[in-house]
């Protein structure tokens, strides 16, 4: 019902915005409707209508104006409206982004079908560009938000012994900005799409068709989601920790989320600014990027990558956290070199801000910029190396319980090694000038983001599934999912390195016949990879609906979220717990438990 109301109010908002603009335009003797301008004005008004409709008014804003806010329902319906419980929001994020992941994945299947042979199969060039662009931004959005949005929201507050996030209303607000982003992007594709990928480089993004305007509006909104989420995590982790939860006792998942949030908070603004500048060039005739009026296309590349390179650490830092969490608990060993890992994560945060121009070695930027960015970029391998030390030291001599989450966490190690090593070729000028914008790059970032973060996501998903749903997942289906995905992934992306070096460039609807053999192989493997997600989806749905009741602590893990029921009670803890020891004291003789749940100070 609130969802329906959201759509209605959103529609009304759109009509009001477009109508007002139309009236003004008509009075000035212009046409009533001007696609780019009308959308740009109507979209924010529609957004406000949507937010009010889905419950922003009923549960929040009405209070400001003297009304009485409604009380949230308890059942399943609360997932479909504005709700401030961090656990509800975590599941909302998780389900929404898994759906977007599957949709963008289906697009990838269509793309692989098209690219199986030279010539055009399924699409024409225009449709191909639209599909490629949608796959790109869809997956980037998933990668940026899913680990933090889902597990950051659900697990992190419990891990630090808090009853909720610091700003529950802002938390709900930032989630409810997500559906309009996804819906707007889908509408953009249905109206003919846009053809600038997820990067939206001008001058093309200024000159191209109107789908671009919807892209810019939607993705700027998504930037707001990321910034609000970042602030919320930073404040929550600083101020909402339970007594005794010192910085040295924080579970590593919390550190990963904290580090990722700092980047999301500080850098996303650059991207949003770039997108707004493109929008201004399109709609109100500014010339930030048009050479004819003194603008510079290179300006955008700097602004864009100033965010978009750090963004990959927004994706992988929480993923590192999740993987290390799973590896420690399921090896029953302390997290190896814990404090070094924290240092490495913060080191990555610091370096992430000064490496962006390695995406621009062939852009024509000033020559003197090449050397510093080459050096700084390769420095990132040093803190990343520490993470690998921790990973290997943690599983070494452990008691490895090789269940589905552990399999995904172990696969992450392998995949991220390949992704990391191939990154060096792209950081080095002599090789990058050849490899830039080829399938080598495509393979590299799929190894880091999909092989890295998405494998970590599945590790986290299977690991916390019993906690979040209160149900056990089906282990056999989980393992089938893992093995098909792992094998399909390797078979798909290893040959892409090769075909890229051979001279196949990326983002192309068609390719020379010489590359056909490799592409047939890649597409077939890609379909195999796609099939694995059928097992995943079936497993998730069946297990959630009719899986066995999960125990409070099925993994025997030490962190706080496993010390309370599955799923946790509404406010997580009856009494605020007291933290007495670090979270990874496995095998330490005479260690006190991580937390004491009762007999603590009463919550004020």
């Amino acid at each position: 019902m609130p969802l329906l109301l959201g759509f209605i109010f959103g529609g009304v908002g759109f009509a009001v915005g477009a109508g007002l603009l139309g009236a003004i335009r008509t009075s000035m003797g212009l046409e009533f409707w001007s696609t780019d301008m009308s959308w740009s004005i109507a979209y924010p008004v529609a957004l406000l209508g949507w937010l009010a409709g889905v419950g922003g008014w009923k549960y929040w804003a009405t209070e400001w104006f003297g009304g009485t806010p409604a009380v949230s329902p308890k059942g399943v319906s609360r997932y479909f409206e504005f709700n401030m419980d961090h656990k509800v929001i975590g599941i909302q994020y998780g389900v929404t982004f898994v759906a977007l992941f599957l949709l963008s994945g289906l697009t990838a299947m269509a793309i692989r079908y098209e690219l199986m042979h030279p010539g055009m199969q399924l699409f024409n060039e225009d449709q191909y560009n639209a599909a490629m662009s949608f796959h790109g931004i869809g997956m980037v959005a998933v990668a940026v938000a899913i680990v933090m949005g889902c597990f950051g929201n659900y697990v992190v507050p419990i891990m630090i012994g808090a009853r909720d996030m610091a700003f529950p209303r802002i938390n709900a607000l930032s989630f409810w900005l997500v559906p309009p982003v996804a819906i707007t992007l889908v509408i953009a594709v249905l109206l003919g799409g846009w053809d600038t990928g997820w990067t939206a480089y001008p001058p093309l993004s200024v000159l191209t068709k109107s789908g671009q305007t919807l892209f810019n509006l939607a993705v700027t909104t998504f930037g707001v989601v990321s910034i609000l989420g970042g602030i919320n995590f930073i404040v929550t982790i600083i101020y909402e920790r339970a007594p005794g939860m010192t910085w040295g006792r924080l579970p590593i998942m919390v550190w990963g989320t904290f580090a990722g949030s700092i980047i999301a908070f500080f850098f996303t603004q650059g991207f949003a600014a770039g997108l707004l500048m493109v929008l201004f060039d399109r709609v109100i005739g500014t010339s930030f990027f048009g050479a004819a009026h003194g603008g510079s296309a290179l300006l955008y590349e700097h602004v864009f990558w100033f965010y978009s390179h750090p963004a990959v650490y927004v994706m992988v830092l929480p993923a590192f956290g999740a993987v290390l969490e799973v590896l420690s608990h399921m090896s029953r060993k302390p997290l190896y070199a814990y404090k070094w890992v924290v240092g490495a994560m913060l080191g990555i945060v610091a370096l992430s801000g000064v490496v962006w121009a390695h995406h621009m070695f062939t852009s024509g930027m000033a020559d003197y910029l090449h050397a510093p960015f080459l050096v700084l970029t390769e420095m990132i391998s040093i803190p990343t190396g520490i993470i690998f030390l921790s990973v290997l030291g943690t599983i070494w001599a452990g008691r490895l319980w090789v269940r589905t989450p552990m399999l995904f966490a172990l696969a992450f190690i392998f995949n991220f090694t390949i992704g990391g090593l191939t990154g060096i070729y792209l950081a080095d000028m002599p090789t990058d000038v050849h490899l830039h914008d080829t399938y080598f790059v495509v393979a590299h970032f799929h190894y880091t983001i999909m092989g890295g973060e998405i494998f970590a996501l599945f590790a986290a998903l299977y690991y916390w599934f019993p906690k979040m749903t209160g149900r056990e997942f089906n282990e056999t289906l989980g393992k089938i999912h893992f093995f098909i995905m792992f094998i399909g992934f390797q078979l798909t992306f290893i040959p892409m390195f090769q075909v890229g070096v051979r001279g196949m460039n990326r983002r192309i609807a068609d390719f020379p016949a010489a590359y056909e053999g490799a592409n047939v192989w890649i597409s077939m493997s890609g379909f195999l990879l796609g099939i694995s997600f059928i097992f995943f989806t079936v497993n998730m749905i069946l297990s959630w609906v009719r899986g066995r009741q999960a125990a409070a602590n099925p993994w025997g893990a030490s962190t706080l979220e496993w010390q309370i029921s599955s799923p946790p009670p509404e406010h997580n803890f009856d009494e605020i717990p007291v933290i007495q020891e670090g979270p990874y004291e496995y095998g330490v003789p005479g260690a006190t438990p991580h937390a004491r749940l009762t007999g603590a100070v009463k919550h004020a």
Partner: protein
Amino acid sequence: MAVIVAVVVTAIVGILGAGALLLDRRPPAPAGEQNGMNRHLAVAAILWVIFTALSLAGAVAMDPFPTGAAPEAAFSDHAFRLMTYMGAPILGLVLAGLVYSVLTFRSVGGADAEDGPPMKGTGMVPKVWLGATTALAVTVMVSPGLTGLAEMRADRTSDMTIKMTGQRWSWTADYPGGITSDELVLPVNKRVKFEVTAPEGDVLHSFWVPAFRNKIDAVPGMTTVTYITPNRIGDGKDDVAYRVQCAELCGLMHARMAMNVRVVDAAEYDKWLAGKVKK
């Protein structure tokens, strides 16, 4: 040369790594357990050597490159190989640690399973590791990184200049003397300076010939420069590496924005040029 580098790197990393693992300060363990741990380390170290050797063998055997038709191409491929050799011991280490752990340290699990040994990595290991990885990173930065960069820039002389213009969705090559061509014909062993641009009001493109391993964007309102000395005769009709391929997404026909490249001997070049002038 590259093989020697790889072997030396392997040896250094091997000694540092093994030393580091042995130096780790663990709580005193029963004598039997300590011996067991040493055996685990020894077997894993052997695995590391094997995986590294296999990776190196693979790296030596591989030939992923398209036709190279310029010294710049040989230079890039050399850097590629060098990094592959240097990566081999790292890949070997991760594989050894991963494979050996999964095979050896598995347990039946369970929520109340026994704990592993409390190794926290508070001793020397992380420091040694940090030192070793920093040394490796600095090595890659210096060579092939910075030295490569310097070498790429070293020679700014040229025998001739060709202006390449990318516009949606085709390339135009402007030769000296007002000759314009929709095919890039280059005399072998002559150093060519390419001035790359795009018209104002157009979009970004990127000038890339896979056989030359070189790429520079065509930016509206700006001229970018790159140098190539083609040294192998060839024709894009027989070998896709000889093509100018736009490598920056430029809209509708981006995939089809390619131009044939032909590297020919001096006589044939003069003939072609003469034919162009007559028209």
